[in-house]
């Protein structure tokens, strides 16, 4: 299996990039707050919140977990339902 870079090297290389991405997210939330009206009941905001909680966890597969949060559920019985 291909070896990833050592963790300290990844952090050195990506520190500023990650910092910039966090700032973009923070600024986007600030922009939503400054805008007229409310999005409090919008289900997409709940998805963001769930994704951010996943980000703060120590699970090894955060990217996959966040993909799942933004995904429609799969139902095994779909073929029966569709009749195909």
């Amino acid at each position, binding site marked *: 299996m291909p070896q990833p870079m050592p963790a300290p090297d990844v*952090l050195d290389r990506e520190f*500023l990039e990650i910092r910039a991405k966090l700032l973009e997210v923070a600024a986007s939330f600030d922009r939503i707050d400054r805008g007229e009206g409310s999005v409090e009941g919008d289900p997409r905001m709940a998805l963001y919140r769930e994704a951010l909680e996943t980000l703060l966890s120590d699970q090894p597969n955060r990217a996959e977990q966040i993909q799942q949060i933004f*995904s429609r559920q799969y139902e095994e019985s779909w073929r029966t339902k569709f009749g195909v």
Partner: protein
Amino acid sequence: MSRPKAHGLQPVGSNDHNIDPTKNIKYRQALTNMYYFDPHIHMVSRTTDDYETLAKMGCVGMSEPAFWAGFDRGSVDSFRDYFCQLTDFEQKRAGMYGLKHFTWMCINAKEAENVQLSREVIKIIPDFLDCPNVLGIGEIGLNKNTKNEATIFLEHIDLAVEYSQQILIHTPHLEDKFQGTRMILDMLNGDSRLERNRVLVDHVEEHTVRHVLDDGYWAGMTLYPVSKCTPARAVDLIEMYGPERLLVNSAGDWGPSKPTAVPDFILEMRRRGHPESLVRKIVYENPIEFFSQSSNFSFTPPNVPEAAIQ
């Protein structure tokens, strides 16, 4: 008293063992073109200048699945003209720069919602399967995961089996991807006539790649600016799943996309210190291995060494 240096605040790359502008061999490699195939790119939507740029960046060939034009076509004749463009004109444009152009035939998942039109299009596809640059049936798949899309997907599979064609599959976008990919795998796995190593399931991401590889199919990672994979995340998947049966492509088309995304992936692999042999396997040897299962695939490697960027 000197101010302590904040961890991580040095200029980007200054502590990167791969980037030494004067003597590091990996830096020199990063300035060298590597030959590669783009296994999924929609050149009908790109300019001739893009063909030239791709050739300059080391691209030696591409495969172009039939796809949605950005609007729904009104008749089977529109598709016939499109298939002529894919099997004739695009080969000529690519050939101007020494590139090999291959293609795939189908009606895409979005227009498959129109079942009647889809069946008319499927009827004309055999007329094109003997064209020398046709590799198979694709990109078929699902878009919004509807009954009609699934019906036409299965009829394309029947066509591929009847004519012993390879298959290239589009998986849906964003929130529909996981559900649609699982539905596609259900349909593929339920068909004992298929040879799984002749099927490529494209646009995989973190939540779908494992399912595709575990079931024995090839998987494609598409490098897009916002949706799908970035070059960095594609390299992450290589590090987690290995290089077997994995491809990377740009899927460059008429929307926001970057036809030179595969070289971005190559550079990211090199910056992380991965060996040239591994990079070459993913961007050059894997596409050739997959395409070689098609009777129409013929490719002569360039008779010149890979060149330094001028």
